């Protein structure tokens, strides 16, 4: 039996030294980071009980009397999000197109992309805080902040979309004697328009969440209401506000998501062929990103 023992005929096992060392190194860094945090880890044990306690205070009997005001403030946040999205899209589509490889010259493209990257790296709240000091604690400032902050990511998505348009139509326009402007208007724009529209709606979805955040730092809307009632520890109202935020956000996400799918799928599909479509339309990597 041992003459044919497969164990003696085995090839050598590939070395797993490098991945193991890397894992150990990462583990050490993580443990060091955890130990260095100024947290009393005994507090961690009490967290579940506290969550249950406060959860009860918030949701056992939410304060529905303040609902009308909450809805008005929610509309304010949605308005901020909408106007911010419009401002952002109006600026980022032309700038993004200029930053696309097939449209703008290098000396325009690179600085533009740099500006996008810088705006992207600065958190929206900071942009909002700075703006608030200039133009005051109003929802309009919030809308402006959302508009400006979004240019970074939106511009990037625009030039990525334009660059991913297939060559064929542009080639045809150039062959007929068109210049860059014509190519953009007749080849790039029609191909990219559904995706750009879908991304614009997605910006609106993101903005709804961010507008609540801006409200927390003073721009108005449901975030302000939330900040106030949390400060006063009025948990029944806080619970009601949370429910409003969750329900409205999820509803707007669903509606916006449905419209986006319709846009990218196209309208002319007869009912009989719908089952032939794949269950999911292709999504660009970035569409799933939160910000």
């Amino acid at each position: 039996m041992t003459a044919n023992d497969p164990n003696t005929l085995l090839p050598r096992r590939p070395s797993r030294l490098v991945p193991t060392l890397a894992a150990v190194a990462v583990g050490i860094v993580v443990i060091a980071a955890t130990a260095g945090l100024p947290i009393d880890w005994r507090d961690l044990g009490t967290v579940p009980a506290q969550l249950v306690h406060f959860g009860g205070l918030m949701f056992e009997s939410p304060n529905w009397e303040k609902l009308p005001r909450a809805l008005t403030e929610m509309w304010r946040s949605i308005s901020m999000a909408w106007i911010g999205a419009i401002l952002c899209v109006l600026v980022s589509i032309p700038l993004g197109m200029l930053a696309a490889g097939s449209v703008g010259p290098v000396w325009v493209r690179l600085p533009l992309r740099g500006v996008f990257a810088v705006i992207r790296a600065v958190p929206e709240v900071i942009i909002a805080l700075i703006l608030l000091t200039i133009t005051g604690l109003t929802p309009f400032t919030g809308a402006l902040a959302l508009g400006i902050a979004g240019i970074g990511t939106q511009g990037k998505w625009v030039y990525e979309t334009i660059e991913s348009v297939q060559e064929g139509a542009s080639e045809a326009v150039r062959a007929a004697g068109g210049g860059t402007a014509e190519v953009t208007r007749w080849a790039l724009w029609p191909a990219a328009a559904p995706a750009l529209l879908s991304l614009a709606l997605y910006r609106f979805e993101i903005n709804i969440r961010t507008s609540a955040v801006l409200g927390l730092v003073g721009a108005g809307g449901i975030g302000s209401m939330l900040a106030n009632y949390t400060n006063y520890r009025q948990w029944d109202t806080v619970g009601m506000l949370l429910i409003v935020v969750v329900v409205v956000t999820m509803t707007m996400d669903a509606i916006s998501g449905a419209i986006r799918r319709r846009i990218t799928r196209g309208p002319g599909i007869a009912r009989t062929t719908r089952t032939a479509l794949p269950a999911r339309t292709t999504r660009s990597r970035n569409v799933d990103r939160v910000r």
Partner: protein
Amino acid sequence: MNTDQHRAEARAQLAASASWSIRLDDVSVTYPNGTKALRNVSLDIAAGEMVSVVGLSGSGKSTLIRTINGLVPATSGTVAVGPHTVTGLRGRQLRRLRGHVGMIFQGFNLADRTSVYRNVLVGRFASTPTYRNLLGLTTATDRELALRSLQSVGMLDKVWTRAAQLSGGQKQRVAIARALTQQPSVMLADEPVASLDPPTAHAVMNDLRRVNTETGLTVLVNIHLMDLARTYTTRMIGLRDGELVYDGSAADATEADFERIYGRPIQPDDRLDR
């Protein structure tokens, strides 16, 4: 000792279980969307036979083979494998039964990013408690069986390779090794060579036949190519539109029989070697 002898010895050492019969009694399968895949099929396969199931796509071959290990439940009728009745089994009993039935697939169904070794160890699922798998522990028996299976199909030198780096024929061999690691009493093969080129297809069919003749394992092969069915199997079952239309010797099947099974004249595509 040359490698062929190594392989034959490994195969002999693997065969620890008795071989089982397969019986279908008036089995019908209707899918939830209304498709009738099998209609009143009855067949009796003795232990140790090597049987091919021939028919066009949509004739019910895939459904038939999957009723034997319960991957598709029979809507009516009984399926029995060896001393066990498959219909009506669920949970742990079904899994235990599946441990005795080895299966290979047209698409190989290997985990591409995983090594050949781990893929073959999948064959030990039914006999390993879950906690061992969670911690990645293997017993000496598991290891021994896996290595011997690989040796018996001649893939031992690729044991640590990622499955994605293998060719189609090599992948199917690894799949056979995976099934052999179960020490099965029945071997099922669903279109095992449909994705392979002719020389490789012959090699894999040869491997299956060797498993049958050397260890006496009952083998059931789904195949749509007439010459392979005639060359490698002794008995042939013909299915058309879910119904049994032929049950007899594979070598004696005439072209007329095949035309009856296919429901249309023979085409060049129905043969592997043109």
